[in-house]
């Protein structure tokens, strides 16, 4: 089992995390709608979370909450979950601010499509430059 596929089956959470990350990238890059781009960013973030949590996990280990006397318990690493707790809250803040910007853009341009917003901006800029000269 020294081939690439064999190693990837052993490391299956990383495999799925990479697939999720690439799907998120494709959603961000190929969809025009701003909501779809936001959802893609959220998917990419969750792929990063999966990598960190899988790195700290132990197969058959115990939850990092002390249970008294038993001395032979193998606890999992509590550090990645504490770091990712911060990451989740930051992701909620980023999503909220992006949603506010989407509302603002919709009020100004009347659409949530990034391509049409860019076209409108180009027209306005062209009009301004011709007006000045």
């Amino acid at each position, binding site marked *: 089992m020294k081939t690439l596929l064999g190693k990837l089956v052993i490391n299956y959470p990383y495999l799925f995390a990479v697939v999720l990350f690439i799907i998120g990238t494709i959603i961000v890059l190929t969809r025009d709608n701003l909501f779809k781009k936001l959802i893609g960013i959220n998917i990419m973030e969750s792929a990063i979370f999966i990598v960190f*949590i899988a790195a700290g996990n132990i197969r058959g280990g115990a939850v990092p909450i002390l249970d008294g006397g038993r001395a032979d318990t193998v606890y999992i690493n509590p550090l990645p*979950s504490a770091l990712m707790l911060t990451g989740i809250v930051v992701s909620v803040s980023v999503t909220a601010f992006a949603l506010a910007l989407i509302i603002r853009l919709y009020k100004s341009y009347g659409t949530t499509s990034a391509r049409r917003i860019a076209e409108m901006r180009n027209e306005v800029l062209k009009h301004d430059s011709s007006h000045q000269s």
Partner: protein
Amino acid sequence: MHFTSADYWIMVLLLTLVIASLSMLFIKDLLHAVIVFGVYSLIMALIWLLMNTPDLAITEAAAGICTTVLMMAVIFRTSRKEE
């Protein structure tokens, strides 16, 4: 290297995540996409419960629902169709 039953459950749930995120590419109605996103974060909470981090599971379930609710509120203010 032997897999336990928790490993197989994590594999099934991760496969469901991949299917949900692939469906995000093809859904045209934004409201449906946001509902699928809520399901996505719920499955993610289940995965973290199986990966021995219940703190993160509770936080992810709450934060995912919060994000979904905010996105729905914004969708009802803007347009629902993806152009």
